[in-house]
C-alpha cells in the first residue's frame, strides 16, 4: 500500500518486513519513534533498555542466539555502546544484526554533531545511508541481508531530516525468518586474543568483499545528467542538491562504508566538475581525494551545522533570491524551549539558585534550568556525568566544597548511567550530595517508561525500582524524599544535606505535568493586582504562564496548572487561589 510515513516509522516497518523478532533501544532524539512504532508489531519482542550499552548487549545476544535483531539509538548513544559495538565487529553475528543510529546535524536536540560514518569506518562495519522514507524501509531490509551474508553488524545511519520527515512508501509483506541454529564453531564469539587475532583477519577480508559488493549494489545510484556538473551526495544532502541542480549528474551514495572506488572514479572522470555534498564532515571528499581524484566540497560548503538547499544554492551558484524581512532578525525575540507551567523541575532549581550552589547538572528537560532566567545549572556534559563530575569538584576544591555544590540528575538518566558514579562517591569516601529529580518518566524524549515508572514498553506493569533503596544498598545513610512543589521543604532539606560531612541522596517527587491522564489541582492561581508590587520576583522562575502587564504580574489562566510553586516566591502574598476562575 502507498502511504506517507515518517523515516523512523519506515525503519520500523522495514524491520518488521525483514522478519525481525527482537528490538532494543534507549530513547534519544531523533531515533525514539523507531522503537515506539516497532512496539506496535506483536511479532517483535521489543524493549526500552536501561541504556544504549545494555540495549546493544541484549541485541548482540539475541543475534548470536539466532534472531534477526535491530537496536536503535541516537548518535551519542553509540558512544555509550561503543565497547560492545567495536568488540562485536571481529566475531560477527548470527541472526542479522542492524544498528540504527540517528545523527543530528544542526544540533536540534543534541550536545554535538558527531558523524556516525566515522564510527562505522573505525569499527570496520558497513554503513548504509537512506535519503527518504522509501529508502529507510528498503535499506533496513537490505541491511539484514548484508549482515547475514557478510557476517557483520550493519549500521543504518539516519539524520534528523530523514528520521523526522514523511514521504511516500510502498509497504510489503513480512518475511518469516526462522531462528538460525546457535552452534557456531567454538571460539567465534570469544574475543580472548588467541581467537580474536584470527577474527581480526576475517574482518579485513570482509571489508574487501564488501568493497566489491559496493561496486555493483543497487544501494548506490548513478543518475546521468548534464556532465558539466557532477554531484556526489548521500542522505538528505542528496535531496537538497537535487532541488538546486535537477539537471546535473548525480552519484548518490547509499552505502557510506566502504565506498565503491571504481564506479566513483568512472563517475568523476566523466564529469567536468564534481562537488561532494555532505553534511558536517568531509569523509567522502577525503576518501575520494585519497584516490588521486579531483573533487570539491569543503572549499564551498560549511562544515558546521546542517546543509540546506539555500546554502547549496548560495555557495555553489552564487545566486539566491533576496529574502523578505518584516523586521531585522536580531530585533525579533528568540523563543527557546522552556520548562512547562507546572514542571517538576522549576522548584528545585529555584531553590538551588537561591542557595547559590554550584550545580553539576545532567541531560534531560531539567537542562532547561541552565537557560535564563533560572540559570542554575553550571555544567552539563553527557548523560550520567553529573554525579562523577560533582565528586570531581570536591576532589579538586576540597571536602568543604561538597557543601557548596550538588549533582542533579533525572530519573531516567540516573538509571542510564548514574549508579556507577554514585558507587564511586561512596567507595572513595566522598561527601557529595546527589539529587534525583524524579518526574516518573523520561520526559525530554517524549515520555518513555524507565525502571522506576513501573511500566515497560508494551504498557504492561512491572515492579518499580526505588532509587532510594539502591542508594541505601550502596551504603548511603542520608536519604531524603521531598515534594518538588514544596520549595520551603526543598530549601530546608538541601541546606541540611549539603552541609553533612558524608554523601547524601535526595529524591524530589512530582510527576511530569504532561503525563496523560494526570489529575491536576482543581484551582489555578491568580495575581491580586491590589497587592502586587511589581517586583518581578515571580518572573525569575521562568514560568511561561506568568507575564508582566502594565507594571504587574499576570497569570495566564489557560496555562496555569495550579502547581503553586510561585505562591511562596511572592514576597507580599499577592498570588492567590483563583476561586473558580476569577481573573
Amino acid at each position, binding site marked *: 500500500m*502507498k*502511504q*506517507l510515513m515518517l523515516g523512523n516509522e519506515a525503519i520500523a516497518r522495514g524491520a518488521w518486513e525483514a522478519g525481525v523478532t527482537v528490538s532494543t533501544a534507549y530513547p534519544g*532524539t*531523533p531515533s*525514539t519513534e523507531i522503537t515506539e512504532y516497532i512496539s506496535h508489531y506483536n511479532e517483535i519482542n521489543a524493549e526500552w533498555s536501561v541504556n544504549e550499552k545494555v540495549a546493544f548487549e541484549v541485541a548482540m545476544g539475541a543475534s548470536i542466539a539466532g534472531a534477526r535483531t535491530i537496536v536503535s539509538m541516537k548518535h551519542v548513544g553509540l558512544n555509550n555502546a561503543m565497547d560492545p559495538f567495536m568488540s562485536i565487529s571481529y566475531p560477527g553475528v548470527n541472526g542479522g544484526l542492524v544498528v540504527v543510529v540517528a545523527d543530528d546535524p544542526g544540533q*536540534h*536536540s543534541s550536545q554535538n554533531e558527531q558523524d556516525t560514518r566515522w564510527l562505522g569506518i573505525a569499527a570496520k562495519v558497513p554503513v548504509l545511508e537512506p535519503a*527518504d522514507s522509501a529508502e529507510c524501509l528498503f535499506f533496513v531490509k537490505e541491511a539484514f541481508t548484508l549482515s547475514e551474508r557478510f557476517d557483520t553488524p550493519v549500521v543504518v545511519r539516519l539524520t534528523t*531530516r530523514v528520521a*523526522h*520527515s*514523511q*514521504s*511516500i512508501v510502498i509497504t510489503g509483506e513480512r518475511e518469516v525468518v526462522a531462528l538460525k541454529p546457535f552452534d557456531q564453531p567454538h571460539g567465534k564469539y570469544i574475543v580472548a586474543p588467541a581467537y580474536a587475532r584470527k577474527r581480526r583477519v576475517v574482518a579485513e577480508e570482509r571489508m574487501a568483499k564488501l568493497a566489491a559488493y559496493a561496486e555493483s549494489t543497487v544501494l548506490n545510484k548513478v543518475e546521468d545528467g548534464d556532465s558539466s556538473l557532477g554531484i556526489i551526495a548521500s542522505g*538528505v544532502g*542528496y*535531496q*537538497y542538491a*537535487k*532541488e538546486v541542480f*535537477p539537471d546535473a549528474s548525480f552519484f548518490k551514495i547509499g552505502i557510506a562504508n566502504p565506498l565503491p572506488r571504481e564506479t566513483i572514479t568512472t563517475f568523476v572522470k566523466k564529469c567536468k566538475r564534481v562537488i561532494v555534498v555532505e553534511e558536517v564532515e568531509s569523509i567522502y571528499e577525503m576518501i575520494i581525494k585519497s584516490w588521486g581524484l579531483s573533487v570539491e566540497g569543503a572549499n564551498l560548503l560549511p562544515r558546521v551545522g546542517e546543509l*540546506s*538547499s*539555500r546554502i547549496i*544554492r548560495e555557495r555553489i551558484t552564487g545566486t*539566491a*533570491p*533576496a*529574502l*523578505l*524581512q*518584516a*523586521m531585522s532578525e536580531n*530585533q*525579533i*525575540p*528568540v*523563543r*527557546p*524551549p*522552556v*520548562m*512547562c507551567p507546572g514542571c517538576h523541575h522549576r522548584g528545585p532549581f529555584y531553590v538551588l539558585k537561591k542557595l547559590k550552589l554550584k550545580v553539576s547538572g545532567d541531560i534531560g*528537560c531539567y537542562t*532547561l534550568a541552565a*537557560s*535564563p*532566567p533560572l540559570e542554575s545549572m553550571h555544567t552539563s556534559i553527557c548523560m550520567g556525568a553529573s554525579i562523577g563530575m560533582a565528586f570531581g569538584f570536591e576532589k579538586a576544591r576540597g571536602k568543604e566544597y561538597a557543601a557548596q555544590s550538588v549533582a542533579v540528575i533525572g530519573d531516567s538518566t540516573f538509571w542510564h548511567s548514574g549508579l556507577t558514579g554514585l558507587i564511586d562517591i561512596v567507595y572513595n569516601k566522598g561527601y557529595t550530595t546527589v539529587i534525583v529529580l524524579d518526574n516518573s518518566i523520561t520526559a*525530554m*524524549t*517524549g515520555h518513555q517508561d524507565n525502571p522506576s515508572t513501573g511500566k515497560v514498553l508494551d504498557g504492561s506493569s512491572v515492579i518499580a525500582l526505588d532509587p532510594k533503596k539502591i542508594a541505601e544498598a550502596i551504603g548511603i545513610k542520608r536519604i531524603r524524599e521531598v515534594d518538588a512543589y514544596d520549595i520551603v521543604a526543598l530549601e530546608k532539606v538541601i541546606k541540611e544535606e549539603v552541609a553533612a560531612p558524608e554523601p547524601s541522596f535526595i529524591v524530589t517527587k512530582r510527576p511530569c505535568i504532561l503525563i496523560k491522564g494526570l489529575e491536576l489541582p482543581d484551582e489555578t492561581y491568580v495575581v491580586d493586582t491590589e497587592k502586587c508590587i511589581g517586583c*518581578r520576583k515571580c*518572573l525569575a522562575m*521562568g514560568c*511561561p504562564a*506568568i*507575564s*508582566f502587564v502594565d507594571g504587574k504580574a499576570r497569570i495566564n489562566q*489557560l496555562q496555569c496548572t495550579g502547581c503553586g510553586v510561585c505562591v511562596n516566591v511572592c514576597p507580599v502574598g499577592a498570588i492567590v487561589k483563583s476561586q473558580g476562575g476569577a481573573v
Partner: protein
Amino acid sequence: MNIVIVAVGGQGALFASRVLGAVALGKGFDVKVSEVHGMSQRGGSVITHVRYGSAIASPIVEEGYGDMVIAMEMLEGLRAVPFLKKGGTMILNEQVIHPMPVITGKMAYPDDIAGKVAAQGITVHRMDALKMACDAGNSKVVNTVLLGAAAACVSGIDRAIWDDTVKTLAPRKYLDVNLQAFDKGYTMVKGNTK
C-alpha cells in the same frame, strides 16, 4: 506547493501538517512533510514543512520559495516571513504568547505584526483562532481553525476531501469540535476573499 507551519511547541502543528500531507497524497501528488520532535517541543519555536507537487526532493521549504505560512502565533509569523516568496500568503493567528526574553523584560514583544507582514506584499489572513476554537468547543483546536483557513486558500481541492481527511485523522472524541473548527477557519477566509 510549499507550506510552512510555525507555532509554539505544544500548539499542534503536527496535526495540521499531517492533514495537509494526507490531502495532497490523496490527490496523487508526491509529498514530503518535515516534522519537529524533541527539545523544541517544550514551548520553543517549531517549524514543520509540507511540500507537494509532481516530484519533491527536499523535505524542507527553502527560504524565499514558500507559497504559504500558517502561523499559529504572531511572533512566530513575523519570524517566518523570510520563508515566503513575493506575494505569498500568511494565515496569521492573532494569539500572543510571550517568549522568555519578553517575560523577563529583556525585549519587547513587537507591535503591529500583521501590518509589518502585510507591508512586505504578503497577503495576510488574520484571525483570532483561539476565540474561534473556543467557540467551536475546545481551546485546543486552534490548529484546525487555521488549517481550515489555509484550505480555503488552496485551489483545486474540494472541500469534501478536506472534511474527510480531518475525519480520518482527528481523534474520535473530538471529531465534531474539529470539523466545526475547520469550518470556522474555512468560511472566514472564503468570506474575506469574496
